[in-house]
């Protein structure tokens, strides 16, 4: 066998090995998700079985039916929780992205005193675990009378997300060449027009990704929400999961069903937005 054909064979073998490896890794990552879906469809006996039952013996949608059946029939106020989650996540994401755009643009484009200090300070707030803030926040919110309200949670989530959105959007504005805004100004734009006509469309994918990250953080957040909300009028879906725990029992099947209900919108949104996350939009703007 000559060198060329052995090299070719080696390359093919490596390709096969890569694919198998990739499959195993993806399987490991996806397994918990798959397990949740399966658990929502099978009886508790099977969920608790040891050793685990991999292939469900019987499948039923009882948990989903029960979930929407109202209080007393094993149901929980899913619609309310869903509505709360949606209002809180969307509003706080919109605010965090708006602030993130303003802040990110300022960090990317302007020189000002204490810039790196402020930036570092913003990033340092990310090092504090949210749960450590839940008790002080709880006391503060009780005093202010905003405990158990949409507003309170939105405020907390905006504070949580702003450093992150600023950091991410700053990076994307850095990639948009400064020359473009200047060219636009020479072409007759005001600074404001130059931003909306040129810089914003080009940083669009970055802003979209900042939005999706912020949204998912709010949508999935449990630690703070569990402390700051308690009634049906403010509880979010992750907190709603706790409704399935009673004093002595946990309804794993119902919990998994609600988890699936939670995952579906997040997954759909990510799928829709990810098409817009394609980079490389700025290619061709400047030389090369």
């Amino acid at each position, binding site marked *: 066998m000559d060198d060329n054909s052995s090299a070719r064979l080696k390359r093919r073998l490596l390709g096969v090995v890569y694919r198998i490896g990739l499959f195993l890794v993806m399987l490991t990552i996806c397994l918990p998700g798959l397990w949740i879906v399966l658990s929502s469809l099978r009886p508790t006996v099977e969920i608790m079985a040891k050793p685990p039952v991999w292939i469900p013996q019987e499948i039923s949608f009882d948990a989903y039916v029960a979930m929407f059946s109202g209080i007393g029939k094993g149901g929980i106020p899913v619609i309310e929780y869903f509505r709360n989650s949606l209002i809180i996540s969307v509003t706080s994401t919109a605010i965090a992205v708006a602030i993130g755009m303003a802040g990110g643009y300022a960090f990317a484009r302007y020189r000002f005193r204490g810039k790196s200090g402020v930036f570092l300070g913003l990033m340092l707030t990310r090092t504090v675990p949210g749960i450590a803030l839940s008790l002080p926040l709880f006391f503060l919110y009780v005093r202010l009378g905003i405990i158990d309200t949409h507003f309170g949670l939105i405020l907390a989530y905006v504070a949580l997300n702003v450093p992150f959105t600023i950091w991410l959007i700053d990076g994307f504005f850095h990639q948009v*060449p400064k*020359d*473009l805004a*200047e*060219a*636009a*100004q*020479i*072409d*007759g*734009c*005001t*600074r404001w*027009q130059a931003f909306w*006509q*040129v810089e914003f*469309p*080009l940083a669009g994918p970055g802003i979209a990704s900042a939005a999706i990250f912020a949204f998912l953080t709010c949508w999935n957040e449990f630690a703070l929400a569990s402390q700051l909300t308690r009634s049906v009028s403010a509880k979010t879906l992750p907190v709603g999961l706790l409704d399935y725990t009673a004093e002595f029992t946990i309804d794993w099947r119902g919990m998994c069903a609600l988890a699936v209900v939670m995952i579906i919108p997040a997954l759909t949104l990510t799928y829709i937005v990810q098409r817009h996350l394609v980079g490389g*939009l*700025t*290619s*061709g*703007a*400047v*030389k090369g």
Partner: protein
Amino acid sequence: MATVSLKKLTKRYGNIEIVHGIDLDITDREFIALVGPSGCGKSTTLRMIAGLEEISAGSIEIGGRVVNDLPPRSRNISMVFQSYALYPHMTVRENLGFSLKIAGAAKEDMDRRVAEASAILGLDTLLDRRPSQLSGGQRQRVAMGRAIVRDPDVFLFDEPLSNLDAKLRTQMRTEIKKLHAKVQSTVIYVTHDQVEAMTLADRIVIMRDGYIEQVGTPDEVFRRPATRFVAGFIGSPPMNLHEATVDDGQLVFASGAKLPLPGQFKANVAAGDKVVFGLRPDDIYPTGHGISSGGAADVHQIELPITVTEPLGNETLVFVEFNGSDWVSRMLNPRTLRSGERVAMSLDLSQAHLFATETGKTLRS
């Protein structure tokens, strides 16, 4: 169409002064090149004229109107950037028409002017492409087209050819010159490439460390450089510049080598003066192979050893050793020379330059 006038124009960043109160008057339809090494303040000056940098002191007038505090859009200028700065999310047509769209021009008017500009620059077939689908030269053309469409008073070019390869650069240089002849606008062109400046400009402004060293036509700055810096900067290969001391009608170099003091400077120097002697490669050549052979006024003959030769086809750059260093000379109608060979060299001292060592200023009266 407009004149541009800079008066005591100054730029400071904090405590650091970048441009030190320069004065410059540019006449209507003139092609001016600002040239100088990196960091000399030429781009900053251009950006101040464009309104992209605030000025720290002084004033800028365009068409007789002071524009110091006007935003770029109110100055009726257009600018071609080194990076082209094309809008990547727009097609060529949209890029060209952007300024008209912002100005609220009517659709027909916009189409007509875009069509005109694209016809001038040969962009007709590319109008529906995006910048990423264009070659470097085509992008450059779109950038110029975008500038033309605005029909500005003044065109500003910020090193527009630096990102092109050598061949394309020469080609685009010619196109810019043709374009200027066609649109008849005032042009301010920044470049670090003295060949671009020489070939394009009506007048050249040579800048260094935030000061203007000399303003003049290409011929003036080449033939009569005002300072040692200009002498070394303009011309390729650069002028041979060597320090010497005046002594009894002679120039004595560091190594002890001597040359007669060129006649045109005799009245302007005294014994003991420290000077810099300059001679262009064109004015030093193997005897019989020079530009001014025959008719030159003050030719000094000397035999020198060759260190290196660089054949260029129609001419050869011959490096000869004198005063312990290499002097470059230009040999026309070259014959083959060997390194180490001693040849008779002619130095046309009537074309020589002398600068005061201390001030760098020319000693020509």
